[in-house]
């Protein structure tokens, strides 16, 4: 008689969202440029056209992987880290200051380690602060992380354009990090460097941690039901603080790797939008570490494709933003198609 409704599997939902956003991208391009076919080619194929474009595309996905992982860890404990922008900035500035203060002949490996560590500590401290406020005093982590980030961004701007401004440059930027201290490039002449391996390794480590270790399990329980976690004797406040701290540290690391990698300096406002894109990545990954890799690649692909169209066909960047927003909308629209709660 009547057919019962069934839920689409998560994978199919995501696939549908991706297809819809790609179709929408094509539609937007058709409306906004006369050279539709070339624009389409620039959008979809140019990121893969040569070593240079491909390498740059992958390089742009690396901070998204690492920061996206950070958002995911916070999500696990049911916390929204909205301070990513500031945490990336803080990580970048800490790493930059450290790298700039090192003597010319320092060992590069040590420099990388210290810079990465400095970035993680800076971002981690800021994240932990929100976590502690939430865990022990019930201050909304969304508000505190966002506001703290706003402060950090301004302090960062001051540091870059004030005490650390490169006197020889017309741009608002710090001095350049000595080229021996930068991460080795792969796939020259693109800006891709070995940080991509760090990103991949972190995804594997976190995936294993969450599935196969006790802290991973306990964090999941905390996120799913706080009262139940307390019943089980899990220190909820500690996990909340730690999750926000790790989240901040990963953001900070993402910032630090940009400074000792492609950018080689800290430019004012370089991280603008990166923190938010990382949230998109985590949402798209649907609470799965393994999902971070394709999500980061997809979001970076949208950006790379739109950059190419912007340069090649003069489509304004606002149109591109609409496109990205619409893609996110499709992906986060959780109720399409029908989701039903079942209970026999």
């Amino acid at each position, binding site marked *: *008689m*009547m*057919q*019962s*409704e*069934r*839920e689409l599997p998560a994978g199919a939902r995501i696939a549908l969202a991706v297809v819809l956003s790609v179709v929408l991208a094509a539609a937007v391009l058709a409306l906004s440029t006369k050279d539709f076919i070339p624009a389409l080619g620039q959008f979809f194929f140019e990121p893969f056209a040569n070593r240079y474009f491909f390498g740059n595309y992958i390089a742009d996905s690396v901070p998204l992987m690492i920061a996206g992982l950070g958002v995911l860890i916070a999500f696990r404990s049911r916390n929204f880290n909205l301070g990513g922008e500031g945490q990336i900035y803080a990580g970048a500035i800490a790493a930059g200051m450290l790298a700039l203060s090192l003597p010319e002949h320092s060992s590069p490996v040590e420099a990388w380690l210290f810079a990465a560590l400095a970035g993680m500590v800076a971002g981690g401290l800021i994240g932990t602060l929100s976590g502690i406020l939430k865990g022990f005093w019930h201050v909304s982590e969304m508000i505190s992380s966002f506001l703290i980030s706003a402060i950090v961004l301004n302090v960062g701007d001051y540091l870059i354009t004030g005490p650390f401004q490169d006197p020889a440059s017309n741009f608002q930027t710090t001095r350049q990090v000595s080229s021996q201290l930068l991460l080795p490039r792969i796939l020259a002449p693109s800006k891709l460097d070995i940080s991509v391996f760090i990103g991949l390794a972190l995804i594997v480590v976190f995936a294993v941690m969450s*599935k*196969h*270790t*006790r*802290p991973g*399990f*306990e964090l*999941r*329980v905390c996120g*799913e*039901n706080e*009262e*139940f*976690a*307390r*019943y*089980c*004797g899990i220190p909820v406040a500690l996990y909340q603080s730690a999750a926000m701290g790790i989240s901040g540290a990963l953001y900070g690391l993402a910032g630090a790797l940009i400074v000792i990698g492609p950018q080689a300096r800290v430019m004012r406002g370089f991280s603008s939008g990166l923190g938010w894109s990382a949230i998109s990545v985590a949402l798209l990954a649907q609470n799965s570490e393994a999902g971070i890799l394709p999500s980061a690649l997809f979001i970076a692909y949208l950006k790379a494709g739109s950059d190419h169209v912007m340069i090649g066909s003069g489509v304004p960047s606002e149109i591109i933003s609409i496109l990205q927003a619409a893609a996110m909308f499709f992906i986060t629209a959780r109720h399409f198609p029908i989701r039903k*709660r*079942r*209970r*026999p």
Partner: protein
Amino acid sequence: MIAVRMRGVSKRYFPSGIRANDEATLEVERGSIHAIVGENGAGKTTLMKILAGLELPDAGTIEIEGKPVHIQSPAHARELGIGMVHQHFLMFDDLTTAENIFFGLEPLRVPKIPGLLGILDRRSLVEQAQRIAADYGFALDPTAHAGDLSISARQQVEILRQLARNLHILILDEPTSVLTEQETAALFEKLAEIRRMGHTIIIVTHKIDEVMQIADRVTVMRQGKTVGTYDIAATTANELACLIMGTNACEEMSPRPQPAAHGPLVFEIEGLSARGHHHGETGVTDLRLAVHAGEVLGVCALSGNGLADLEDALGGFLVPSKGFCIFDGSRLDFRRMHEYRQLLKKGAIGYLPSDRMRRSMALSLTVRDNFMAVSRTRFFHRGWFRSTLATRQTREALRSFEISAQPEQKTVELSGGNIQKLAIARLFSIQLPKLLILCEPTWGLDIKSTENVHRRILDAKAAGSAILILSSDVDEILALADRIMVLYRGRAVLLASNGGGLNRERIGEYLLGARSE
């Protein structure tokens, strides 16, 4: 005249493939109270959800007042005059009683202009609420906020909400599971009144004595199928119990526990005071109690008399303002809660929460994750998860407690009864604690599961555990406890041995504060 006729109704849930209804049939006469009984997971609720438009059947036909219908949605069911009062009430806590009853039907001061917002006529809203409450004999304050109401008053609001919509076929899902003895009696009077006014009432329940008391006819369901429909006048409680369980030999229900010669003192509380933090809870004042090894102490109270606060204090969720306890010879100040919490964490004290939907389960996790979460350390070897061990032990526990679920299933898919059985299975699958604190252990369970749980409790007692049962179910306390304590307004008004002159009525007097020692 037949109000509802359902034939050959089947429903299978995906992806678990569980057959909730298998060619079930139902015939309900107009103007009658019709009970549907069966064990947890027998398919009663699913069948009613189909009737109320909340689930679509895979197969089968439905006739309402003789007309064949395809019920597509709850709105469609309401058009046909069918309304359902759920086990867990769905209402707006921040709106008033009247606003909740007439939600969507609010009287307006100016006739509504299509496409524009109307102006609420508050006075006539309150008047209408008073009128409908009086018509059916309910005593409700129309201006009270729904969130402040007691559970039985919330239920009345739910019922009136259906009646205000002129729904003449009312489905009540386990209506008495949240009510006390007195509230149940009051509800039954109201239901009889509603029947007298010509409405049809369908009650889903597993309490046979209530069926005998209120229903005209009863349909028994087992494993998704309809066993049969019987006139109450022509059947007995024992016959029904046999039909529900599907066994021919129905031995009498559990015997009273033998008063055991109990062992040494295990747990003692002195001068425990805690401020209530629940709606309308009074907290507990200057409580003292003692439980020995091999003894069951039952603490009984009506809702709002401190039982929930006592549970929270003993469960480590509420820091008392005063008092200490002696556990196994060592004294702990209750205000230094972390020391007491260590006992819970180490498993020296086993605690079964009464709130199974929030505190004792994370519904979004799998059955296995919930099963292993409490005593999780044994499932991790040097920090690494031993997943085969966890799955195997979960499967064993599911089998031994007869829970129809798979370890990988999401817990939210389980019925309320199975969730409780899972919580109990978890508690009894580890080494027996010295002290067990069991709160409403069989709330919402069917007869067979209740029997099973009671047997486990008595086994634990025989094995030397000290057991503290906190329950608002007098029958349960009488069936299990060696000594009984009654709380009224947060104070102990009775502490006596079970047996002798103590019976249900007598305890009822203490529960209501009519008597005190």
